[in-house]
């Protein structure tokens, strides 16, 4: 597709990384359900293992279907490449494990998905990796938390649960002042709403389970490298990145930053991380995510349009105390959101019902279109009441510290008719009000 201009987002969403299959002429991306790939000769095999040639050997390391997904997400994000992983959590783990080890330190936003918080707060310390959590808007806090052994700065573009907007450019600047890369979880925003590399982030990942696929049928993740972080320069300044700038005995003494000036991170992540940790994506899952990606621009536009209508309805309802959506002037990050997210603030948000946990339960149980489950980013609208599910062990004081009220409800707005969703919410609000 040569031309005088680079292809636009919608074109990339359909075509990047994929061409008609040369063997069969198949126009759609084939599902390469094979563990391994036949070598042409012993010499060919040796050259693949020694990185003298590019190609596929074993599907834990790479697979043609996964490669299409990896290239496509990288294209949509404006990145240099990507790695598809078994889940979003696997993508986060792969990002950290590629550059950090025992004795390393991470500075992370305190407004994180619970699974990410668990990994950083409880699990990685067992492996010697400590994390300091900082409120995403506390810019001095980010700076102060950085230590000599810090390897990574990490936040979510839209944080849990209050949709704190990460000031990507400013946090990236702080990270770069200290020769550190910024990793962001872009799951809630997708590249259609925000392309963090354009604001200075160096690495990002998605839970592809959510909006990238959009159909709620698949678990997966994608880790993307901008190719912009200069590991050699950072290591020269701080000595922190020998994993990418010194010979690695585990792979022929390779110095990844010499091997690929802009692809060093992904080379190690694939050649070590996928090889040894093995959290690779199943090719069928990659294909399913690709089906969703083809319509990402259309879906995201609709998600945002419907979310705005639902937010407007809830913000004006007598039973609703507060709606946490950054497009509302009442949201603390409204100004930042206007600047960073002009296309919208996504389709996941929380609101506080007036009342107690019982009101929250009554509301949830009265809904008929919204599905009560623990996921977001589906074409179906979803709802969860944290105080009676994900956070049920917490008392009201502990909930408050986590930014959650007893009757806080999280919605993920799907692709149904906005009027039907609003009718469903009206019924449920009436049911909750009847408890008074």
């Amino acid at each position, binding site marked *: 597709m040569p031309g005088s201009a680079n292809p636009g987002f919608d074109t*990339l969403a359909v075509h990047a990384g994929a061409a008609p299959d040369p063997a069969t002429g198949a126009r759609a991306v084939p599902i390469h359900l094979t563990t391994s790939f036949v070598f042409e000769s012993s010499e060919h095999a040796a050259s693949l293992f020694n*990185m003298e040639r590019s190609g596929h050997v074993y599907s834990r390391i790479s697979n043609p279907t996964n490669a299409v997904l990896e290239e496509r997400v990288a294209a949509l994000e404006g990145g240099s490449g990507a790695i598809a992983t078994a889940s979003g959590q696997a993508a986060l783990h792969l990002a950290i494990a590629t550059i950090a080890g025992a004795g390393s330190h991470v500075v992370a936003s305190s407004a994180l998905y619970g699974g990410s918080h668990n990994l950083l707060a409880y699990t990685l310390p067992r492996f010697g990796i400590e994390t300091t959590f900082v409120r995403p808007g506390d810019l001095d806090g980010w700076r102060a938390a950085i230590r000599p052994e810090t390897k990574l700065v990490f936040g979510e573009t839209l944080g849990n649960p209050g949709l704190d907007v990460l000031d990507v450019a400013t946090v990236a600047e702080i990270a770069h002042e200290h020769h550190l890369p910024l990793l962001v979880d872009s799951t809630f925003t997708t590249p259609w709403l925000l392309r963090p590399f354009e604001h200075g982030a160096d690495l990002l990942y998605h839970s592809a389970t959510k909006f990238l696929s959009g159909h709620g049928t698949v678990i997966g993740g994608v880790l993307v490298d901008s190719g912009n972080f200069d590991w050699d320069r950072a290591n020269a300044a701080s000595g922190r990145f020998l994993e990418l700038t010194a010979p690695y005995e585990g792979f022929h003494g390779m110095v990844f930053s010499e091997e690929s000036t802009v692809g060093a991170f992904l080379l190690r992540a694939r050649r070590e991380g996928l090889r040894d940790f093995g959290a690779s994506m199943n090719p069928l899952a990659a294909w399913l995510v690709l089906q969703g990606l083809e319509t990402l621009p259309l879906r995201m536009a609709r998600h945002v349009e419907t979310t705005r209508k639902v937010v407007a309805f809830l913000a004006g309802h007598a039973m609703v105390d507060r709606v946490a959506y950054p497009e509302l002037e009442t949201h603390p990050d409204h100004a930042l959101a206007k600047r960073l997210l002009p296309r919208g603030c996504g389709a996941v948000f929380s609101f506080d019902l007036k009342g107690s946990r019982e009101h929250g339960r009554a509301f949830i149980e009265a809904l008929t279109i919204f599905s009560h489950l623990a996921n977001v980013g589906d074409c179906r609208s979803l709802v969860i009441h944290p105080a009676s599910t994900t956070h049920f062990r917490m008392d009201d004081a502990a909930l408050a510290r986590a930014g959650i009220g007893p009757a806080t409800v999280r919605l993920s707005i799907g692709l149904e008719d906005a009027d039907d969703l609003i009718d469903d919410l009206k019924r449920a609000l009436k049911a909750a009000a009847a408890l008074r």
Partner: protein
Amino acid sequence: MKLAVRSAGDVRDAYAYTGGKAFDARLPCVVLLHGALHDHSSWTLAARWFAHHGHAVLAPDLPGHGRSDGAPLASVEALADWLLALLDAAGVATAALAGHSMGSLVALETAARAPARADRLVLVGTAFPMKVSPALLEAARDDAHAAIDSVLAYSHATLAAKPSYPGPGTWLHGSDRALMRRTHDGQRNTNLFLTDFQVCDRYAGAIAAAARVTCPATVVVGARDQMTFASQAVELADALGARTVTLPCGHALMSEAPDQVLAALREAIVVR
């Protein structure tokens, strides 16, 4: 490896990738030269193959590019002199010289200036004249990153080159953009985009140089190349008496068609 290269009365450190093996000047040497705004990493797959198949490999970063010190050089002739000095520093008497785009002109001029030091010549993605649009040069004065995006659009012939480079999962447009931006931004006091593209644009000596080349030559072109059209390499190939290999790709030959480029290099270089 680092080499101290004496060029224009100055000694500067130059970096050369050696294919993942220690450089051994006793082995037949292959030199791989990158193009404008690129560095040695354009050539790593081929470099590794040659280094692990009985060759000594030098894939240098040209002055002012990547890991090599010094200001970028402003002419093909100056780069050829620098390359000869690099060969001296590495203890290489004779080498197969291969180059991509701007690097192809440097390889050609070097083989012409010192015919005894080139035993094979491979010009990849070459053309003569290698003229650059005045509008692109003008655009690069104002916004080199935007000019890089234009170059990207013309350099890549597909959105799905397989098996990708240096391995699966690499988005070639994005990795190429990141590399060109980083290489350009590495020069604080010089507009490297302008320097490199003017090096290509101003070189007028290709046909005369071809007449002085004594070694066998091969020209490798991309059938869908929109930067250096295959048709623009014909006169030069004829002047060299070169064998021409046409590959189904654009100007980013090594990344869009890595196996075919390696095959062409092997055929041109290994049997000697």
